[in-house]
Structure formats: structure tokens, C-alpha cells
């Protein structure tokens, strides 16, 4: 799992339960909204910082990082990204996150350039490009950075909810 937070409400005093449930409902809404902010942070972070990788692979990665929110009464869970799913559908998530030698380093890729930024892949074409033999992809650590951002965001939410 990329990032997962879970909160369980433990209510035992009957006389206070009506008031608590109202607050708990508001809290759950905020909890899920914070999760969406963290998810957006991760996607935006990849968009703005990934370098040395093709646009297509980055776009596919965005689509595979999904957001799940589970509201089960006294339990609320937010999950961002599923490593098992990423390993199958976008295994290059790791090289974008941790950095490393370019998987196509030293190889010829057939195709042609459209402008300075877009390279179109055409199998069998005589023209194309060769990725430098020692090319390395710079790490952006979007998983670890999102963990820090997410932890701070949830800490802030809990602080606000408990000091009201």
C-alpha cells in the first residue's frame, strides 16, 4: 500500500453518544477530504517533478494511483495507491520513485521528434534516438514525500478536531 490511514471511533458513554456522533460524522467527512488532498498532492508531485521519463509512462502512473475511502460507521479508512496493482499495471513506478539506470540506456528507439518535447514511437523506422549509455533517472520519492505531507495533514486535522 502506498499510503493508508485508519481511524476507529470508540464510544461507550450512552448519554454523550448523540453529540459525539454528530462530531464523528463531521470528522469522517474531513478525514476523507484530507485523504483527497493527500492523493492530489501525490499526483501533482509526480507531474511537476518527474524528469527523464516519458509523458506516457507518467500519465499511466497517475491513472494507476487510485484513491479509496471506506466509511463503515465507527471505522473510516483512506488508501492511496496499491503497490500490488502498481507492480502489475505500472511496474516503472519504482524507478520513478527511487531513481536508477534508465531501462532503455544505450538502446536505439525508432521514431521521430515532433517539436522539442514530443517523441513519437514508430517501430521499424530508420530514424529515432539513442538513450545515453549512462543515463539515469533522478529519484523523486513521491511515496516518501507523500507520507510526510499526509502525516502532517492528518496531525493537523486531529489537532483541530480535539481542540475545538
Amino acid at each position, binding site marked *: 500500500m502506498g499510503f493508508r490511514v485508519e481511524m476507529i471511533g470508540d464510544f461507550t458513554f450512552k448519554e454523550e453518544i448523540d453529540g459525539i456522533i454528530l462530531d464523528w460524522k463531521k470528522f469522517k467527512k474531513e478525514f476523507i477530504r484530507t485523504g483527497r488532498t493527500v492523493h492530489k498532492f501525490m499526483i501533482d508531485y509526480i507531474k511537476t517533478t518527474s524528469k527523464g521519463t516519458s509523458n506516457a509512462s507518467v500519465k499511466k502512473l497517475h491513472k494507476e494511483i487510485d484513491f479509496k475511502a471506506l466509511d463503515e460507521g465507527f471505522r473510516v479508512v483512506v488508501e492511496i495507491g496499491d503497490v500490488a496493482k502498481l507492480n502489475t499495471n505500472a511496474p516503472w513506478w519504482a524507478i520513478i520513485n*527511487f531513481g*536508477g*539506470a534508465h531501462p532503455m540506456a544505450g538502446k536505439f528507439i525508432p521514431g521521430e521528434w515532433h517539436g522539442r518535447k514530443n517523441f513519437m514511437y514508430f517501430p521499424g523506422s530508420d530514424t529515432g534516438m539513442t538513450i545515453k549509455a549512462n543515463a539515469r533517472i533522478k529519484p523523486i520519492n513521491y511515496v516518501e514525500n507523500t507520507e510526510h505531507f499526509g502525516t502532517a495533514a492528518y496531525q493537523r486535522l486531529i489537532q483541530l478536531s480535539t481542540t475545538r
Partner: protein
Amino acid sequence: MGAYRSKRCFETSTKDYIKTNMVSDWSNVNVYRGWGNVSGNNLPAVTVRSGINVHDRVELGSFNTRRSITLFIDIFATSEGQGLDLTDYLVGLLKKSWDYEKYTVTNGVSTSETDGKITCINISDTPVNLNTNKSELDKIDRYRYLLTLVVVNNKVEV
């Protein structure tokens, strides 16, 4: 005369702290700031980089903030055992606190002055798995580990 701002001070102070300890405890381990200096010829190596910074308000009604910063310690080892040992050694070293230095560069010569302590709030220890067979990987990427630290320097930034 130029002075490093906070992010570079965090990175460089941590690099210097690791380097000073490495000299006495390990032999031939290179320590760098930034990721670009490592190649197949200078392994084993340890690098220090910074990630996101979170600036939280100190109190309501004030613009003052307290910064927490993510530091990435990349370990590039030459064998699995060496990587595991280096990781554990660094966790032991970095869970303590170390000096926060303020750096000034004059005519290409950098000098530093201690200005507080860097304290580690938490450490995550991750073996780097690039979803590729080890034999197909570049020499540099074969035995890699990543330590992610969230640190603070206990200073209010005005």
C-alpha cells in the same frame, strides 16, 4: 560572501555528520550531498538529499513557522550484507541528534558555525526494489537501500 539557506544547511550538516563518523567507523565509504555524484567507480557510497518541507504555524495569529524536513539517505553498497550493515549503522547514528551548522562561502571556501541541533522524529528503512532482476540491474542499483528521515531543528522561523 554567500550563505546557505536552511535546506542546504540541513543537507550539508547531515552529510558532514555522517562523513565524520564514517571516517572512524568504516573504511572506503564515500559520502556525498546530492544523488548525481555516485557512479560504478566510487561504491560503496552514501548520499544525502532533501525532500519536502512542511512549515507549520507555531501559534494562531502569528506568521512564525516551524519546519520539518524529509531527508533521504541513499545507500549504494557492493553486496547485500554490506548494505544491511551500513543501513543499521546509519539508523543507529541518525536516531540521535546532531549539530545544525550554518554555512558561509567566501571565495569558494566554506566555513560553518553551529546553530542548534537537528533532531530526528522518525526513520523509515526501505530496501530499494526496482522490479527488475538483480543480474540485469546496473552495478550501482544492485544493492540499494533508502533511509527516509523526518527531522526538525527546533527553531522558529520568522
